[in-house]
Protein backbone atom coordinates (compact mmCIF):
# COMPACT_ATOMS: atom_id res chain seq x y z
CA UNK A 1 0.00 0.00 0.00
CA UNK A 2 2.68 2.47 1.01
CA UNK A 3 4.70 1.46 -2.02
CA UNK A 4 1.78 2.26 -4.27
CA UNK A 5 1.42 5.64 -2.64
CA UNK A 6 5.14 6.24 -2.97
CA UNK A 7 4.98 5.42 -6.66
CA UNK A 8 2.15 7.88 -7.23
CA UNK A 9 3.95 10.61 -5.29
CA UNK A 10 7.11 9.93 -7.25
CA UNK A 11 5.30 10.19 -10.60
CA UNK A 12 3.57 13.36 -9.54
CA UNK A 13 6.77 15.10 -8.48
CA UNK A 14 8.68 13.74 -11.45
CA UNK A 15 6.12 15.42 -13.67
CA UNK A 16 6.31 18.66 -11.71
CA UNK A 17 10.09 18.37 -11.96
CA UNK A 18 10.05 18.12 -15.74
CA UNK A 19 7.77 21.15 -15.97
CA UNK A 20 9.98 23.11 -13.58
CA UNK A 21 13.20 22.16 -15.37
CA UNK A 22 11.63 23.15 -18.68
CA UNK A 23 10.63 26.56 -17.34
CA UNK A 24 14.03 27.20 -15.77
CA UNK A 25 15.83 26.09 -18.89
CA UNK A 26 13.66 28.24 -21.17
CA UNK A 27 14.01 31.16 -18.79
CA UNK A 28 17.80 30.91 -18.57
CA UNK A 29 18.00 30.63 -22.35
CA UNK A 30 15.99 33.85 -22.53
CA UNK A 31 13.23 32.27 -24.56
CA UNK A 32 10.56 34.30 -22.72
CA UNK A 33 12.25 37.52 -23.75
CA UNK A 34 9.51 38.61 -26.16
CA UNK A 35 6.98 38.80 -23.38
CA UNK A 36 9.18 41.36 -21.64
CA UNK A 37 10.61 43.14 -24.68
CA UNK A 38 7.43 43.39 -26.72
CA UNK A 39 4.97 43.54 -23.86
CA UNK A 40 2.46 45.70 -25.72
CA UNK A 41 2.37 43.41 -28.73
CA UNK A 42 2.15 40.37 -26.47
CA UNK A 43 -0.76 41.82 -24.55
CA UNK A 44 -2.51 42.79 -27.75
CA UNK A 45 -2.23 39.24 -29.08
CA UNK A 46 -3.28 37.76 -25.75
CA UNK A 47 -6.33 40.00 -25.65
CA UNK A 48 -7.16 39.05 -29.23
CA UNK A 49 -6.79 35.38 -28.36
CA UNK A 50 -9.07 35.62 -25.36
CA UNK A 51 -11.59 37.58 -27.39
CA UNK A 52 -11.60 34.95 -30.15
CA UNK A 53 -12.23 32.22 -27.60
CA UNK A 54 -14.86 34.08 -25.60
CA UNK A 55 -16.92 35.40 -28.50
CA UNK A 56 -16.98 32.10 -30.38
CA UNK A 57 -17.61 30.00 -27.26
CA UNK A 58 -20.42 32.18 -25.97
CA UNK A 59 -22.10 32.13 -29.34
CA UNK A 60 -21.68 28.37 -29.53
CA UNK A 61 -23.05 27.76 -26.03
CA UNK A 62 -25.90 30.18 -26.70
CA UNK A 63 -26.94 28.19 -29.73
CA UNK A 64 -25.97 24.63 -28.84
CA UNK A 65 -27.77 24.40 -25.49
CA UNK A 66 -31.16 25.62 -26.75
CA UNK A 67 -30.71 23.39 -29.82
CA UNK A 68 -29.92 20.43 -27.58
CA UNK A 69 -33.00 21.15 -25.48
CA UNK A 70 -35.12 21.50 -28.59
CA UNK A 71 -34.18 18.18 -30.17
CA UNK A 72 -34.88 16.31 -26.94
CA UNK A 73 -38.46 17.66 -26.69
CA UNK A 74 -41.07 15.14 -27.76
CA UNK A 75 -42.30 17.32 -30.59
CA UNK A 76 -38.84 17.48 -32.19
CA UNK A 77 -37.54 14.01 -31.34
CA UNK A 78 -37.36 13.19 -35.01
CA UNK A 79 -34.56 15.74 -35.36
CA UNK A 80 -32.43 14.10 -32.71
CA UNK A 81 -30.99 11.33 -34.84
CA UNK A 82 -29.89 13.48 -37.79
CA UNK A 83 -28.62 16.28 -35.52
CA UNK A 84 -26.57 13.91 -33.36
CA UNK A 85 -25.09 12.13 -36.36
CA UNK A 86 -24.25 15.41 -37.98
CA UNK A 87 -22.61 16.54 -34.74
CA UNK A 88 -20.62 13.32 -34.48
CA UNK A 89 -19.53 13.57 -38.08
CA UNK A 90 -18.68 17.23 -37.65
CA UNK A 91 -16.55 16.47 -34.64
CA UNK A 92 -14.30 14.15 -36.60
CA UNK A 93 -13.44 17.00 -38.95
CA UNK A 94 -10.15 18.53 -37.78
CA UNK A 95 -10.19 22.15 -36.63
CA UNK A 96 -7.51 23.12 -39.13
CA UNK A 97 -9.71 21.85 -41.96
CA UNK A 98 -12.68 23.90 -40.72
CA UNK A 99 -10.53 27.01 -40.42
CA UNK A 100 -9.07 26.47 -43.89
CA UNK A 101 -12.48 25.92 -45.48
CA UNK A 102 -14.07 28.90 -43.75
CA UNK A 103 -11.19 31.06 -44.88
CA UNK A 104 -11.52 30.05 -48.51
CA UNK A 105 -15.19 30.96 -48.53
CA UNK A 106 -15.42 33.88 -46.09
CA UNK A 107 -11.98 35.36 -46.61
CA UNK A 108 -9.43 36.16 -43.95
CA UNK A 109 -9.90 38.16 -40.77
CA UNK A 110 -11.12 38.13 -37.20
CA UNK A 111 -14.73 37.35 -38.03
CA UNK A 112 -13.86 34.39 -40.24
CA UNK A 113 -11.80 32.99 -37.40
CA UNK A 114 -14.63 33.57 -34.91
CA UNK A 115 -17.06 31.85 -37.23
CA UNK A 116 -14.81 28.81 -37.70
CA UNK A 117 -14.19 28.50 -33.95
CA UNK A 118 -17.90 28.91 -33.32
CA UNK A 119 -18.76 26.08 -35.71
CA UNK A 120 -16.12 23.90 -34.12
CA UNK A 121 -17.34 24.61 -30.56
CA UNK A 122 -21.02 23.99 -31.16
CA UNK A 123 -20.58 20.27 -31.63
CA UNK A 124 -19.23 19.11 -28.26
CA UNK A 125 -21.70 21.32 -26.38
CA UNK A 126 -24.63 20.12 -28.47
CA UNK A 127 -23.61 16.50 -28.17
CA UNK A 128 -23.17 16.67 -24.41
CA UNK A 129 -26.39 18.61 -23.92
CA UNK A 130 -28.38 15.98 -25.80
CA UNK A 131 -26.55 13.10 -24.11
CA UNK A 132 -26.97 14.75 -20.72
CA UNK A 133 -30.68 15.39 -21.13
CA UNK A 134 -31.18 11.86 -22.42
CA UNK A 135 -29.33 10.40 -19.47
CA UNK A 136 -31.79 11.85 -16.97
CA UNK A 137 -33.67 8.91 -15.47
CA UNK A 138 -37.15 8.77 -17.06
CA UNK A 139 -38.52 7.87 -13.61
CA UNK A 140 -37.54 11.37 -12.42
CA UNK A 141 -39.45 12.99 -15.25
CA UNK A 142 -42.40 10.70 -14.59
CA UNK A 143 -42.34 11.52 -10.88
CA UNK A 144 -42.15 15.23 -11.64
CA UNK A 145 -44.98 15.06 -14.13
CA UNK A 146 -47.08 13.02 -11.73
CA UNK A 147 -46.56 15.61 -9.00
CA UNK A 148 -47.84 18.35 -11.25
CA UNK A 149 -44.69 19.96 -12.63
CA UNK A 150 -45.38 21.92 -15.80
CA UNK A 151 -43.23 20.99 -18.83
CA UNK A 152 -40.96 24.00 -18.29
CA UNK A 153 -40.63 23.20 -14.58
CA UNK A 154 -39.62 19.67 -15.53
CA UNK A 155 -36.99 21.09 -17.88
CA UNK A 156 -35.51 23.69 -15.53
CA UNK A 157 -35.96 22.02 -12.14
CA UNK A 158 -35.40 18.39 -13.02
CA UNK A 159 -33.79 17.82 -16.40
CA UNK A 160 -31.27 20.67 -16.58
CA UNK A 161 -29.95 20.36 -13.01
CA UNK A 162 -29.54 16.62 -13.41
CA UNK A 163 -27.86 16.99 -16.79
CA UNK A 164 -25.68 19.84 -15.53
CA UNK A 165 -22.54 17.78 -15.21
CA UNK A 166 -22.32 16.51 -18.81
CA UNK A 167 -23.43 19.89 -20.13
CA UNK A 168 -20.76 21.72 -18.16
CA UNK A 169 -18.18 19.14 -19.24
CA UNK A 170 -19.16 19.75 -22.86
CA UNK A 171 -18.67 23.50 -22.44
CA UNK A 172 -15.29 22.90 -20.81
CA UNK A 173 -14.14 20.56 -23.58
CA UNK A 174 -15.29 23.02 -26.21
CA UNK A 175 -13.55 26.00 -24.62
CA UNK A 176 -10.27 24.19 -23.99
CA UNK A 177 -10.19 22.95 -27.58
CA UNK A 178 -11.13 26.42 -28.64
CA UNK A 179 -8.02 27.93 -27.05
CA UNK A 180 -5.93 25.57 -29.17
CA UNK A 181 -7.89 26.15 -32.34
CA UNK A 182 -7.70 29.90 -31.77
CA UNK A 183 -3.91 29.56 -31.94
CA UNK A 184 -4.44 28.49 -35.56
CA UNK A 185 -6.54 31.58 -36.23
CA UNK A 186 -3.36 33.41 -37.17
CA UNK A 187 -3.35 31.36 -40.38
CA UNK A 188 -6.64 32.91 -41.44
CA UNK A 189 -5.69 36.37 -40.29
CA UNK A 190 -7.58 36.14 -37.03
CA UNK A 191 -4.65 37.17 -34.88
CA UNK A 192 -4.08 35.76 -31.41
CA UNK A 193 -1.02 34.22 -29.85
CA UNK A 194 -0.66 31.88 -32.83
CA UNK A 195 1.05 34.90 -34.37
CA UNK A 196 4.11 34.34 -32.18
CA UNK A 197 4.10 30.58 -32.64
CA UNK A 198 3.88 30.57 -36.43
CA UNK A 199 6.40 33.39 -36.68
CA UNK A 200 8.65 31.25 -34.50
CA UNK A 201 8.21 28.25 -36.78
CA UNK A 202 8.96 30.26 -39.89
CA UNK A 203 11.88 32.17 -38.38
CA UNK A 204 13.18 29.19 -36.42
CA UNK A 205 13.06 31.47 -33.39
CA UNK A 206 12.88 29.77 -30.00
CA UNK A 207 11.99 33.12 -28.42
CA UNK A 208 8.88 33.52 -30.55
CA UNK A 209 7.92 29.86 -30.10
CA UNK A 210 8.16 29.80 -26.32
CA UNK A 211 6.69 33.27 -25.83
CA UNK A 212 3.66 32.14 -27.82
CA UNK A 213 3.30 28.50 -26.87
CA UNK A 214 3.70 28.78 -23.10
CA UNK A 215 1.00 31.46 -22.65
CA UNK A 216 -1.40 29.54 -24.92
CA UNK A 217 -0.83 26.40 -22.88
CA UNK A 218 -1.31 28.23 -19.60
CA UNK A 219 -4.45 29.86 -20.97
CA UNK A 220 -5.90 26.45 -21.86
CA UNK A 221 -5.01 24.99 -18.48
CA UNK A 222 -6.38 28.02 -16.63
CA UNK A 223 -9.67 27.87 -18.51
CA UNK A 224 -9.87 24.16 -17.77
CA UNK A 225 -9.31 24.76 -14.06
CA UNK A 226 -11.65 27.70 -13.93
CA UNK A 227 -14.46 25.76 -15.59
CA UNK A 228 -13.87 22.78 -13.32
CA UNK A 229 -14.30 25.17 -10.42
CA UNK A 230 -17.52 26.54 -11.94
CA UNK A 231 -18.69 22.96 -12.40
CA UNK A 232 -18.08 22.26 -8.77
CA UNK A 233 -20.19 25.18 -7.59
CA UNK A 234 -23.01 24.82 -10.11
CA UNK A 235 -23.48 21.06 -10.16
CA UNK A 236 -25.47 19.86 -7.15
CA UNK A 237 -23.54 17.94 -4.50
CA UNK A 238 -26.16 15.22 -4.71
CA UNK A 239 -24.95 14.44 -8.22
CA UNK A 240 -21.27 14.34 -7.42
CA UNK A 241 -21.06 10.62 -6.90
CA UNK A 242 -22.85 9.79 -10.12
CA UNK A 243 -20.81 12.47 -11.88
CA UNK A 244 -17.55 10.83 -10.87
CA UNK A 245 -18.62 7.48 -12.25
CA UNK A 246 -19.92 9.09 -15.42
CA UNK A 247 -16.62 10.77 -16.23
CA UNK A 248 -14.89 7.46 -16.81
CA UNK A 249 -17.09 6.31 -19.66
Amino acid at each position, binding site marked *: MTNKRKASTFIRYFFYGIVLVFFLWAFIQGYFSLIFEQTDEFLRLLRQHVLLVLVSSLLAVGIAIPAGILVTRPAFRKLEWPVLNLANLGQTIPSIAILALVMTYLGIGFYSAVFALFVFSILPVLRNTVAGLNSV*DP*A*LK*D*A*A*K*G*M*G*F*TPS*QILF*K*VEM*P*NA*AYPIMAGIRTAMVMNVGSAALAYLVGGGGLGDFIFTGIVMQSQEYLISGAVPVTLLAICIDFFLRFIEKITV*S*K*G*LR*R*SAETAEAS
Partner: protein
Amino acid sequence: MIEFKNVTKTYDGKVNAVDDVSFTVPQGNIAVFLGPSGCGKTTLLRMVNRLVPITKGEIFIDGENTNSLNEIQLRRNIGYVIQSNGLFPNMTIEDNVTVVPKLLGWDKEKMRSRFFELMDLIGLKPDDFRKRYPHELSGGQQQRIGIARAMAADPPVMLMDEPFGALDPIIRSHLQKEFLQIQKEVQKTILFVSHDIDEAITMGDQVAIFKDGRLMQYDAPDDILANPANEFVSTFVGADRAIKSLGLHTVADLVNQLKVTPVAADSKQISLKTDLRQILSIFFNEGYEELVVVDEEKKPMGSITIQDVQKYLHQTNQSA
Protein backbone atom coordinates in the same frame (compact mmCIF):
# COMPACT_ATOMS: atom_id res chain seq x y z
CA MET B 1 -63.90 8.65 -2.84
CA ILE B 2 -62.69 7.59 -6.25
CA GLU B 3 -65.12 6.35 -8.82
CA PHE B 4 -64.17 4.58 -12.06
CA LYS B 5 -66.98 4.58 -14.63
CA ASN B 6 -66.56 2.41 -17.71
CA VAL B 7 -62.92 3.44 -17.98
CA THR B 8 -61.25 2.23 -21.17
CA LYS B 9 -57.78 2.79 -22.59
CA THR B 10 -57.14 1.86 -26.20
CA TYR B 11 -53.74 2.14 -27.85
CA ASP B 12 -53.69 2.67 -31.62
CA GLY B 13 -57.38 1.82 -31.75
CA LYS B 14 -56.61 -1.86 -31.32
CA VAL B 15 -55.78 -3.42 -27.99
CA ASN B 16 -57.71 -2.41 -24.92
CA ALA B 17 -55.05 -1.96 -22.23
CA VAL B 18 -57.87 -1.15 -19.84
CA ASP B 19 -61.28 -2.44 -20.79
CA ASP B 20 -64.52 -0.98 -19.48
CA VAL B 21 -63.57 -0.89 -15.81
CA SER B 22 -66.02 0.35 -13.17
CA PHE B 23 -65.70 0.35 -9.42
CA THR B 24 -65.64 2.69 -6.44
CA VAL B 25 -62.99 3.16 -3.78
CA PRO B 26 -64.48 4.55 -0.56
CA GLN B 27 -62.96 7.52 1.28
CA GLY B 28 -59.97 6.59 3.43
CA ASN B 29 -59.51 3.13 1.97
CA ILE B 30 -56.58 1.46 0.33
CA ALA B 31 -57.49 -0.27 -2.91
CA VAL B 32 -54.79 -2.55 -4.26
CA PHE B 33 -54.64 -3.08 -8.03
CA LEU B 34 -53.37 -6.59 -8.48
CA GLY B 35 -52.51 -8.67 -11.50
CA PRO B 36 -49.72 -10.04 -13.67
CA SER B 37 -47.57 -7.58 -15.59
CA GLY B 38 -49.33 -6.14 -18.61
CA CYS B 39 -52.76 -6.51 -17.05
CA GLY B 40 -53.43 -2.78 -17.19
CA LYS B 41 -53.16 -2.03 -13.46
CA THR B 42 -50.43 0.59 -13.84
CA THR B 43 -52.15 2.13 -16.87
CA LEU B 44 -55.35 2.48 -14.86
CA LEU B 45 -53.42 4.09 -11.99
CA ARG B 46 -51.77 6.55 -14.36
CA MET B 47 -55.14 7.46 -15.82
CA VAL B 48 -56.20 8.82 -12.43
CA ASN B 49 -53.70 11.69 -12.54
CA ARG B 50 -53.98 11.76 -16.32
CA LEU B 51 -50.40 10.75 -17.04
CA VAL B 52 -52.21 8.46 -19.43
CA PRO B 53 -55.22 10.03 -21.16
CA ILE B 54 -58.54 8.24 -20.84
CA THR B 55 -59.91 6.89 -24.10
CA LYS B 56 -63.45 6.29 -22.90
CA GLY B 57 -65.26 6.55 -19.60
CA GLU B 58 -64.75 8.82 -16.59
CA ILE B 59 -62.92 8.95 -13.31
CA PHE B 60 -64.41 10.96 -10.45
CA ILE B 61 -62.51 12.10 -7.39
CA ASP B 62 -64.94 13.18 -4.67
CA GLY B 63 -67.59 13.58 -7.32
CA GLU B 64 -65.46 15.71 -9.64
CA ASN B 65 -64.71 14.47 -13.11
CA THR B 66 -60.92 14.46 -13.46
CA ASN B 67 -61.23 15.44 -17.09
CA SER B 68 -62.90 18.69 -16.12
CA LEU B 69 -59.89 19.80 -14.08
CA ASN B 70 -56.64 21.38 -15.20
CA GLU B 71 -54.21 18.46 -15.32
CA ILE B 72 -51.38 20.28 -13.54
CA GLN B 73 -53.71 21.33 -10.70
CA LEU B 74 -55.15 17.83 -10.58
CA ARG B 75 -51.70 16.26 -10.19
CA ARG B 76 -50.62 18.69 -7.49
CA ASN B 77 -53.58 17.49 -5.44
CA ILE B 78 -52.73 13.82 -5.81
CA GLY B 79 -49.77 12.21 -4.07
CA TYR B 80 -47.64 10.08 -6.39
CA VAL B 81 -45.16 7.40 -5.32
CA ILE B 82 -43.30 5.18 -7.78
CA GLN B 83 -41.23 2.06 -7.41
CA SER B 84 -37.84 3.62 -8.11
CA ASN B 85 -38.82 6.38 -5.62
CA GLY B 86 -38.13 9.12 -8.21
CA LEU B 87 -36.32 11.30 -5.69
CA PHE B 88 -34.46 14.12 -7.40
CA PRO B 89 -30.75 13.41 -6.93
CA ASN B 90 -29.85 17.08 -7.33
CA MET B 91 -32.03 18.19 -4.43
CA THR B 92 -31.52 17.73 -0.70
CA ILE B 93 -33.95 15.56 1.22
CA GLU B 94 -35.74 18.65 2.49
CA ASP B 95 -36.08 20.10 -1.00
CA ASN B 96 -37.35 16.79 -2.27
CA VAL B 97 -39.99 16.48 0.42
CA THR B 98 -41.22 20.04 0.05
CA VAL B 99 -41.13 20.17 -3.72
CA VAL B 100 -44.90 20.19 -4.25
CA PRO B 101 -45.57 22.74 -1.49
CA LYS B 102 -42.99 24.90 -3.21
CA LEU B 103 -44.81 24.56 -6.52
CA LEU B 104 -47.97 25.54 -4.68
CA GLY B 105 -46.24 28.65 -3.37
CA TRP B 106 -46.18 27.90 0.35
CA ASP B 107 -44.03 30.19 2.47
CA LYS B 108 -40.71 29.00 3.84
CA GLU B 109 -41.73 28.57 7.47
CA LYS B 110 -44.78 26.56 6.57
CA MET B 111 -42.68 24.29 4.38
CA ARG B 112 -40.08 23.84 7.10
CA SER B 113 -42.61 22.89 9.75
CA ARG B 114 -44.36 20.56 7.30
CA PHE B 115 -41.02 18.88 6.61
CA PHE B 116 -40.46 18.25 10.33
CA GLU B 117 -44.01 16.93 10.71
CA LEU B 118 -43.63 14.51 7.83
CA MET B 119 -40.24 13.25 8.96
CA ASP B 120 -41.69 12.55 12.39
CA LEU B 121 -44.55 10.72 10.74
CA ILE B 122 -42.25 8.43 8.74
CA GLY B 123 -39.91 7.98 11.67
CA LEU B 124 -36.75 9.66 10.42
CA LYS B 125 -34.95 12.38 12.35
CA PRO B 126 -35.48 15.60 10.39
CA ASP B 127 -32.18 17.21 11.38
CA ASP B 128 -30.18 14.13 10.39
CA PHE B 129 -31.58 14.11 6.89
CA ARG B 130 -32.42 17.69 5.98
CA LYS B 131 -29.21 18.54 4.16
CA ARG B 132 -28.36 15.11 2.85
CA TYR B 133 -28.86 13.90 -0.71
CA PRO B 134 -30.86 10.87 -1.86
CA HIS B 135 -27.84 8.78 -2.83
CA GLU B 136 -26.61 8.89 0.76
CA LEU B 137 -29.73 7.06 1.97
CA SER B 138 -30.58 3.37 2.04
CA GLY B 139 -33.29 2.03 -0.27
CA GLY B 140 -35.78 1.80 2.58
CA GLN B 141 -35.06 5.35 3.71
CA GLN B 142 -35.36 6.64 0.16
CA GLN B 143 -38.75 5.02 -0.22
CA ARG B 144 -39.91 6.52 3.08
CA ILE B 145 -38.85 9.93 1.80
CA GLY B 146 -40.74 9.22 -1.42
CA ILE B 147 -43.88 8.60 0.62
CA ALA B 148 -43.33 11.72 2.72
CA ARG B 149 -42.91 13.73 -0.47
CA ALA B 150 -46.20 12.41 -1.83
CA MET B 151 -47.98 13.45 1.36
CA ALA B 152 -46.33 16.84 1.63
CA ALA B 153 -49.19 18.97 0.39
CA ASP B 154 -51.65 16.75 2.29
CA PRO B 155 -53.47 15.50 -0.80
CA PRO B 156 -56.67 13.55 -0.08
CA VAL B 157 -55.74 10.94 -2.69
CA MET B 158 -52.49 9.05 -3.22
CA LEU B 159 -51.33 6.86 -6.07
CA MET B 160 -48.64 4.32 -5.29
CA ASP B 161 -47.09 2.29 -8.10
CA GLU B 162 -45.40 -0.75 -6.52
CA PRO B 163 -43.85 1.53 -3.91
CA PHE B 164 -42.09 -1.28 -2.08
CA GLY B 165 -41.33 -3.39 -5.15
CA ALA B 166 -37.60 -2.66 -5.26
CA LEU B 167 -36.93 -3.42 -1.60
CA ASP B 168 -35.79 -6.66 -0.06
CA PRO B 169 -38.51 -8.77 1.63
CA ILE B 170 -37.62 -7.90 5.22
CA ILE B 171 -37.54 -4.15 4.64
CA ARG B 172 -40.63 -4.44 2.46
CA SER B 173 -42.76 -6.06 5.13
CA HIS B 174 -41.41 -3.59 7.67
CA LEU B 175 -42.39 -0.63 5.50
CA GLN B 176 -45.79 -2.17 4.77
CA LYS B 177 -46.59 -2.32 8.47
CA GLU B 178 -45.19 1.13 9.04
CA PHE B 179 -47.23 2.53 6.21
CA LEU B 180 -50.44 0.99 7.54
CA GLN B 181 -49.73 2.73 10.86
CA ILE B 182 -49.30 6.04 9.04
CA GLN B 183 -52.48 5.44 7.07
CA LYS B 184 -54.41 4.98 10.34
CA GLU B 185 -53.42 8.54 11.17
CA VAL B 186 -53.78 10.23 7.81
CA GLN B 187 -56.77 8.33 6.34
CA LYS B 188 -55.96 8.95 2.68
CA THR B 189 -57.79 7.35 -0.17
CA ILE B 190 -55.06 5.27 -1.75
CA LEU B 191 -54.70 3.37 -5.00
CA PHE B 192 -51.85 0.93 -4.69
CA VAL B 193 -50.45 -1.15 -7.56
CA SER B 194 -48.89 -4.48 -6.71
CA HIS B 195 -48.15 -7.81 -8.33
CA ASP B 196 -47.75 -9.57 -5.03
CA ILE B 197 -50.85 -11.27 -3.60
CA ASP B 198 -49.42 -11.25 -0.08
CA GLU B 199 -48.80 -7.53 -0.25
CA ALA B 200 -52.32 -7.01 -1.58
CA ILE B 201 -53.82 -8.96 1.33
CA THR B 202 -51.75 -7.06 3.86
CA MET B 203 -52.26 -3.58 2.45
CA GLY B 204 -55.68 -3.60 0.86
CA ASP B 205 -59.07 -2.72 2.26
CA GLN B 206 -60.15 -3.73 -1.22
CA VAL B 207 -58.33 -5.65 -3.88
CA ALA B 208 -59.01 -5.24 -7.59
CA ILE B 209 -57.69 -8.09 -9.69
CA PHE B 210 -57.06 -7.45 -13.37
CA LYS B 211 -56.38 -9.62 -16.36
CA ASP B 212 -55.80 -8.31 -19.88
CA GLY B 213 -57.26 -4.93 -18.94
CA ARG B 214 -60.45 -6.32 -17.48
CA LEU B 215 -61.49 -6.22 -13.86
CA MET B 216 -61.83 -9.83 -12.71
CA GLN B 217 -62.91 -9.21 -9.15
CA TYR B 218 -63.15 -6.28 -6.76
CA ASP B 219 -63.67 -7.25 -3.13
CA ALA B 220 -62.21 -7.20 0.31
CA PRO B 221 -59.16 -9.51 0.61
CA ASP B 222 -61.14 -11.96 2.76
CA ASP B 223 -63.81 -12.36 0.16
CA ILE B 224 -61.36 -12.76 -2.67
CA LEU B 225 -59.56 -15.53 -0.82
CA ALA B 226 -62.77 -17.21 0.29
CA ASN B 227 -64.72 -16.86 -2.91
CA PRO B 228 -62.61 -16.25 -5.98
CA ALA B 229 -64.92 -15.02 -8.74
CA ASN B 230 -63.41 -17.22 -11.42
CA GLU B 231 -60.72 -19.64 -12.43
CA PHE B 232 -58.17 -16.88 -13.10
CA VAL B 233 -58.58 -15.27 -9.69
CA SER B 234 -58.41 -18.58 -7.92
CA THR B 235 -55.18 -19.51 -9.76
CA PHE B 236 -53.73 -16.08 -9.22
CA VAL B 237 -54.33 -16.00 -5.48
CA GLY B 238 -52.86 -19.48 -5.32
CA ALA B 239 -53.86 -22.94 -4.16
CA ASP B 240 -52.82 -21.97 -0.64
CA ARG B 241 -55.41 -19.20 -0.51
CA ALA B 242 -57.04 -20.75 2.54
CA ILE B 243 -53.82 -20.50 4.48
CA LYS B 244 -53.28 -16.96 3.22
CA SER B 245 -56.71 -15.97 4.46
CA LEU B 246 -55.82 -17.24 7.91
CA GLY B 247 -53.27 -14.44 8.06
CA LEU B 248 -56.16 -11.98 8.06
CA HIS B 249 -57.73 -13.37 11.23
CA THR B 250 -56.54 -13.51 14.79
CA VAL B 251 -57.11 -15.80 17.71
CA ALA B 252 -59.50 -13.19 19.07
CA ASP B 253 -61.72 -13.57 15.97
CA LEU B 254 -61.77 -17.32 16.46
CA VAL B 255 -62.54 -17.08 20.17
CA ASN B 256 -65.40 -14.70 19.44
CA GLN B 257 -66.97 -17.06 17.00
CA LEU B 258 -66.35 -20.49 18.51
CA LYS B 259 -66.63 -21.64 22.04
CA VAL B 260 -63.22 -22.54 23.40
CA THR B 261 -62.93 -25.72 25.41
CA PRO B 262 -61.68 -25.31 28.97
CA VAL B 263 -58.02 -25.89 29.50
CA ALA B 264 -57.41 -29.61 29.80
CA ALA B 265 -53.67 -29.91 29.91
CA ASP B 266 -50.79 -27.52 30.24
CA SER B 267 -49.57 -26.38 26.83
CA LYS B 268 -47.93 -23.51 24.97
CA GLN B 269 -49.63 -20.16 25.61
CA ILE B 270 -50.72 -17.87 22.80
CA SER B 271 -52.03 -14.31 22.88
CA LEU B 272 -55.28 -13.10 21.37
CA LYS B 273 -53.38 -10.97 18.85
CA THR B 274 -51.61 -13.86 17.14
CA ASP B 275 -52.86 -14.43 13.61
CA LEU B 276 -54.24 -17.83 12.66
CA ARG B 277 -51.61 -18.48 10.06
CA GLN B 278 -49.01 -18.40 12.80
CA ILE B 279 -51.17 -20.64 14.94
CA LEU B 280 -51.31 -23.21 12.19
CA SER B 281 -47.58 -23.03 11.87
CA ILE B 282 -47.14 -23.59 15.59
CA PHE B 283 -49.41 -26.63 15.47
CA PHE B 284 -47.46 -28.18 12.63
CA ASN B 285 -43.98 -27.28 13.76
CA GLU B 286 -44.17 -27.96 17.43
CA GLY B 287 -46.59 -30.86 17.44
CA TYR B 288 -49.03 -29.64 20.12
CA GLU B 289 -52.49 -31.18 20.36
CA GLU B 290 -53.87 -27.93 21.67
CA LEU B 291 -52.76 -24.39 22.49
CA VAL B 292 -53.77 -22.32 25.50
CA VAL B 293 -55.30 -18.93 24.71
CA VAL B 294 -54.44 -16.26 27.27
CA ASP B 295 -55.96 -12.79 27.63
CA GLU B 296 -54.16 -9.48 28.12
CA GLU B 297 -53.40 -10.30 31.73
CA LYS B 298 -51.91 -13.65 30.70
CA LYS B 299 -54.87 -15.46 32.25
CA PRO B 300 -55.80 -18.68 30.43
CA MET B 301 -59.16 -18.41 28.65
CA GLY B 302 -59.36 -21.85 27.14
CA SER B 303 -57.60 -23.98 24.57
CA ILE B 304 -57.94 -24.46 20.84
CA THR B 305 -57.11 -27.34 18.53
CA ILE B 306 -56.26 -27.57 14.88
CA GLN B 307 -59.85 -28.65 14.24
CA ASP B 308 -61.08 -25.36 15.69
CA VAL B 309 -59.03 -23.46 13.13
CA GLN B 310 -60.45 -25.60 10.37
CA LYS B 311 -63.99 -25.09 11.60
CA TYR B 312 -63.51 -21.34 11.91
CA LEU B 313 -62.12 -21.05 8.41
CA HIS B 314 -65.00 -23.05 7.06
CA GLN B 315 -67.60 -20.90 8.76
CA THR B 316 -66.10 -17.58 7.74
CA ASN B 317 -65.73 -18.73 4.15
CA GLN B 318 -69.39 -19.58 4.06
CA SER B 319 -70.49 -16.30 5.51
CA ALA B 320 -68.20 -14.28 3.21
